[in-house]
């Protein structure tokens, strides 16, 4: 595999066979990616699927065991230093100084990235306002809530207006409302021309990305825009309601045409192979002994895509998130 679109200025990141091993364990396995300018690209995968390792390789923090990458025109493995000024990185766990205040942390970042004095002041003021941190401006970072720290980390990561922003599970510790606001800020950034690479194990978050790659044990299982992935799902989704759902699930899982089944509330969500004719009738027939049930076909969502791509119910991200 070669990095084909090397000269295309619209291509921000391209990788070929990117691999990283830790001892006998392969954390990232021959990943080929192309990420273009101005998109939000999501890495969706459960814990341990290699999202962080992949990001660390793309920022030059880890040297790939095999394969190559080209990020903003910088070849990796190689000299990643010219990259640092052009990228922002929000690490998975809070990595700013807990014993400094919000303003002090931002001021540190501004100085490290070499913002001139005037610009430093106005930029910090703008960011405090934009990320709703004015009330916490002089609060010690260690004493803030997870959501506030998240905002500080994002503000610090975008302070020097990077072309490419890496966000490693940015909202895993915050409530849904904060997450919604957070994503609104991300779309503002994209409107400003920033390219964003975000990792997540939340389906709703992945659904907001322009394109995603689903990772499992370091391997890219499937890649594309969420609507295309849902439309292209090689399975039909049947929702089953009834009294004995647990028993029903056992019956369904034994059938070769059923890819997976999962109980969601009072319903059973069943993926049936696309080549199975009349899937509703097929499921109903299977559940003949399980009391009265109703079956109807429904639209595929991203979780169905994920489940189908990662081969069944194992390592379901929704469970990992819980």
């Amino acid at each position: 595999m070669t990095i084909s679109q090397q000269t295309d200025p619209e291509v921000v990141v391209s990788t070929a066979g990117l691999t990283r091993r830790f001892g006998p364990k392969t954390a990232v396995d021959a990943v080929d990616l192309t990420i273009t300018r101005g998109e939000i690209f999501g890495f969706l995968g459960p814990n341990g699927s290699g999202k962080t390792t992949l990001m660390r390789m793309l920022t030059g923090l880890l040297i790939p065991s095999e394969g190559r990458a080209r990020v903003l025109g910088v070849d990796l493995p190689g000299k990643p230093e010219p990259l640092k000024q052009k990228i922002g990185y929000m690490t998975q766990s809070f990595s700013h100084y807990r014993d400094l205040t919000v303003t002090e942390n931002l001021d540190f970042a501004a100085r490290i990235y070499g913002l001139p004095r005037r610009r430093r002041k106005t930029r910090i003021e703008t960011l405090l306002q934009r990320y709703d941190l004015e009330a916490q401006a002089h609060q010690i970072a260690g004493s803030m809530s997870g959501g506030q720290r998240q905002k500080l980390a994002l503000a610090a990561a975008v302070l020097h207006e990077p072309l490419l922003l890496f966000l490693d599970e940015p909202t895993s510790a915050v409530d849904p409302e904060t997450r919604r606001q957070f994503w609104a800020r991300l779309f503002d950034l994209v409107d400003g021309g920033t390219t964003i690479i975000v990792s997540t194990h939340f389906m709703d978050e992945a659904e907001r990305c322009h394109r995603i790659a689903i990772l499992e044990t370091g391997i890219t299982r499937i890649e594309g825009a969420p609507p295309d992935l849902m439309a292209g799902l090689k399975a039909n989704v049947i929702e089953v309601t009834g009294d004995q759902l647990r028993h029903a699930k056992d019956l369904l899982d034994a059938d070769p045409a059923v890819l997976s089944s999962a109980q969601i509330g009072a319903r059973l969500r069943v993926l049936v192979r696309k080549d199975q004719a009349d899937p509703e009738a097929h499921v109903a027939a299977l559940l003949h002994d399980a009391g009265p049930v109703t079956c109807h076909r429904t639209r595929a969502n991203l979780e169905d895509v994920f489940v189908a791509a990662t081969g069944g119910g194992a390592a379901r991200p929704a469970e990992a998130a819980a």
Partner: protein
Amino acid sequence: MISIGRIGAILKKELLQLRRDRMTFGMVIMIPLIQLVLFGYAINTNIRHIPVGLVDQDQSGLSRMLVQMVGTTQVVDFTQTYATPQQAQQALTAAEVRAVLIIPPDLPARLVRIPAIGAAPPPATDMASARPVAQWIVDGSDTMIAAGIKSLRSMPLTELFRQPPNRVVPTFEVALFYNPEQRSAVNIVPGLVGIILTMTMIMFTSAAIVRESERGNMEMLINTPVRPIELMIGKIIPYMVIGLVQVAIILGLGYLLFNVPVNGSLWVLLVVTLLFIGASLSLGLVLSTIATNQLQAMQMTVFILLPSILLSGFMFPFDGMPGPAQAIAQLLPATHFMQMIRGVVLRDAALIDMAGGMLWMAGFMVFGLIVATLRFRKRL
């Protein structure tokens, strides 16, 4: 290109963190303060008041006078009396006393014949008259205490007989420069500057890089354009200032409490001290790039600190050490500093006299910085 701005960023951040770290901040002041007071008073190389026992087999007025005279030297304090030499020996084994004076029953007979009282010296071959007056049995395991007792070996006993002493002409005349009263503090206080700086400077910086990793800041830091050398310099500068504050505390208090003057020029003192602080800090940074956590950093600090105390000439004279020990000691910045600070503070030594040691310390500092910088990888 090294960026002054980025060094400033690191420097400012270190100062802010230091200000909020009450514990470290307190140690900066308290370590020199307490240790100076403690060691200034406690360390005394002139041995005094050793607890000793007495076996008086004579029990005469003469023996009591002898004991009194030995007591007035203040080298020993008679704290115990024993009936027999055997009991005395047991007491020595049990560490009740460090030495015992055994006065034989024939004390008067021994006394009349000894030369100290003015009679003509007896021929050395005359066993009867060449006998000493009494015997010390000493727990010789502590050489300092043994030496203290040994110093009593030929104390004059003329007073015992109210006779003017014979004029004794010493073989050598000794003129004591720089510390004529032989006060230990004069030697200890400048030396303590070296020890306390070694301890605090290496301790603070050896944790400096490790702390960034331990607190999870490293991943952020190595994602910024900061260069390793900028990081190192930015981390060193605040501690240079701290080191100077500590030196001021030690020498200032040394003057107030122990009357140890600073005879040399303050500029020379500043240059020498800054060089030593720089060398210690860069050594600390090297340790910091080796250690994987703060505990390891602390262990490595102790590994450097112990030889710095024992081999640098702080405790024992450097010139008295065997060759290999001297060679090892020469590697330590503290050894060079010990000679220099005593030179400046006590003897008003000039910079030019210490060029060798200063060059060595400057080289050590630059080498340490380079090693630390090369060892520091902006990777995980």
